[in-house]
């Protein structure tokens, strides 16, 4: 008797506590149900009418936890349209994509979500995102969106729009004016001049190195921005992957030639935190980044910071393509409240919201003309260099499945392998090109 009870006690303890073994297979049918019931906000806000307030779930990552811009906008939106936006912003950017994938797989996806360039491809391919062309055509704000912005949110067919442009960033070069003066170096315009400048700026005895190459996580963006300025292209005019080219290889070789002699110690692993702190500390004379860094530098000592276009193959900006990156908002195909969700993401692309986002903690480039021409940005050198770069030919990682794999998996080991001599420099180009075309 006791023995049997012991068995039961054991099994019950292990099974019950081990959470119910309700074994529902993750099936496509569960995808259809939106996760709203679980994550809906408890009875909206006090000001809203108690009955029939539509509530949508929106996922967003915040750069700075203390930034309240997006919540303020959601409150304004609710007052205007009576739609409550339940913002889920407590996922850090590095974990965002993985969390979104899990939520989609478990049938708990939000109605709308923030996305960036690197995430589009696989989502579009899996038909997780709702095509927005019809709604955008009917949207009053369409004409205000800078035309080139649409190319970053279109699927591989070049027609279907899957997301609403929201924040735009252009890559450019930051350099230390004081170090350039100290060592008598002029700002490089071509990529050969860039390598020469990196050499001339390197003075290990002063703990100064020419260029902090970003070899670690997500350094592919800086690298690709350099290569694109050097003449590389992701896709050809027909939309086929055409990354592997002589220009890409030449530029890649120049970029890699700075390592290890003219780059910071440990640069092979450097991420965003390292390149920015090395730049602020004056141990790195040049780095490549976008506007995201500007506010941090403004708090510090903006007078020491110079900005310039990324050195290019020819040195002539009008003959150069510059790389940007797009953060956009999409509606999930599984959402049952697509209209409300679209209303919200289109609201975020209208003048008032764009102005607020552009002025938020880190600052972004607006995607609409009415804000881009706002006079208050005329005195901001970071904003000006971004606009100057964007005035030329502009590209970004294409919204194809291979982009996610190439940027998140393929690039880093091959690039680091090229830096350490484990594989050739050209192997990086071929590997990334191959991943872009095959998605593997």
């Amino acid at each position, binding site marked *: 008797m006791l023995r049997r009870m012991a068995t039961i006690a054991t099994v019950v303890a292990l099974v019950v506590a081990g959470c119910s073994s309700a074994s529902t297979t993750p099936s496509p049918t569960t995808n259809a149900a939106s996760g709203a019931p679980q994550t809906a906000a408890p009875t909206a806000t006090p000001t809203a009418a108690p009955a029939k307030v539509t509530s949508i779930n929106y996922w967003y990552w915040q750069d700075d936890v203390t930034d309240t811009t997006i919540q303020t906008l959601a409150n304004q939106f609710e007052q205007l349209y009576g739609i409550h936006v339940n913002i889920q912003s407590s996922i850090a950017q590095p974990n965002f994509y993985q969390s979104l994938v899990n939520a989609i797989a478990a049938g708990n996806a939000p109605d709308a979500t923030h996305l960036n360039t690197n995430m589009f491809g696989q989502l579009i391919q899996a038909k997780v995102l709702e095509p927005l062309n019809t709604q955008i055509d009917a949207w009053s704000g369409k004409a205000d969106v800078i035309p080139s912005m649409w190319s970053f949110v279109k699927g591989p067919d070049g027609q279907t729009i899957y997301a609403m442009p929201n924040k735009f960033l252009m890559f450019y070069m930051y350099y230390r004016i004081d170090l350039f003066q100290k060592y008598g170096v002029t700002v490089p315009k071509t990529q050969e001049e860039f390598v020469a400048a990196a050499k001339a700026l390197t003075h290990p005895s002063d703990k100064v190195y020419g260029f902090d190459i970003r070899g670690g996580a997500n350094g592919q963006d800086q690298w690709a921005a350099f290569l694109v300025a050097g003449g590389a292209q992701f896709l050809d005019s027909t939309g086929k992957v055409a990354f592997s080219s002589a220009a890409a290889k030449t530029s890649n070789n120049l970029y890699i030639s700075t390592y290890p002699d003219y780059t910071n110690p*440990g640069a092979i692993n450097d991420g965003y935190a390292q390149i920015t702190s090395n730049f602020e500390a004056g141990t790195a004379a040049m780095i490549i980044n976008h506007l995201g860094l500007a506010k941090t530098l403004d708090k510090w000592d903006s007078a020491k910071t110079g900005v310039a276009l990324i050195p290019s193959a020819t040195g002539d900006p009008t003959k150069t393509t510059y790389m940007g990156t797009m953060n956009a908002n999409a509606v999930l195909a599984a959402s049952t409240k697509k209209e409300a969700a679209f209303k919200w993401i289109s609201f975020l692309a209208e003048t008032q919201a764009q102005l607020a986002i552009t002025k938020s903690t880190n600052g972004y480039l607006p995607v609409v003309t009415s804000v881009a021409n706002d006079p208050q940005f005329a005195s901001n050198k970071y904003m000006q260099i971004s606009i100057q770069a964007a005035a030329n030919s502009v590209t970004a990682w294409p919204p194809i499945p291979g982009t*996610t794999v190439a940027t998140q998996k393929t690039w880093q080991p091959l690039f680091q392998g090229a830096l350490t001599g484990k594989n050739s420099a050209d192997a990086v180009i071929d590997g990334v090109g191959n991943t872009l075309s095959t998605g*593997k």
Partner: protein
Amino acid sequence: MIWPAINAVYLSFTSTNLLNLSEQTLIGLDNFRAMLADPVFYTALVNSLWWTFGAVFFQLLFGMIGALALNQNIKFRGLIRGLVLLPWATPSVLIALMWMWILDPNLGIANRMLGFIGIGAQPWLSDPGTALPTLIFIDVWFGIPFFAVMILAALQSVPHELLEAARIDGANAWNTFWRVVLPLILPAVLITTTLRLIWTANFFDLILILTNGGPANASLTVPLYAYQTAYRGMDFGLGAALAVAQAAFLAILVVLYMRQIRKSDIA
């Protein structure tokens, strides 16, 4: 509860895209064939072996020494026991960022300290040769308190009469430990070590944040590769196959352990 694990095994025989589960198909052993044909898998496997056994060996060694020290009647014992526990109770994201900052080749305190005492700057995580050992070092630092607490608890079941008897027989500290204490705490040490090996093999948060497997795969372990394959490459089937392959290795540990306790089980 066992379902998620069974599901992982099932997935390893399928082609699965988490974003599009309706297109899941059974593909037999294709994932395992792809895995065995992938040279990176072998790199990761060797790294995993070093990572797992290297980290756990030193954790056990220092944890044992630490437990013996904490078992003494020392001053401020409660406070000291609490303080040395701290690394274990710190989330790995913070541990990783803390050490990233300390070991930073340009601005970190570690190289500055080494400079003071006349040793040159070390590359730490940025050299393929030193990245994995550095990560193991951090994981040892992180894991010592776990062993210390578990062994400290086990030490309480050593009857004082036996220690007394050993002392009267003139056994020195080393002999007493080896002949009297160790056999008695061995069951606890064995289960702790077995599970710690399994957990360490599967633990990749530190590596993900600090090196993401780099430089050039020098610190890539099997579960990190499985994660990258599943969530970056969006090939969940192959990712599961990698995890299943490692689980098979680890299952050997469990079998060895079960056999060992069955032998010593006086039932």
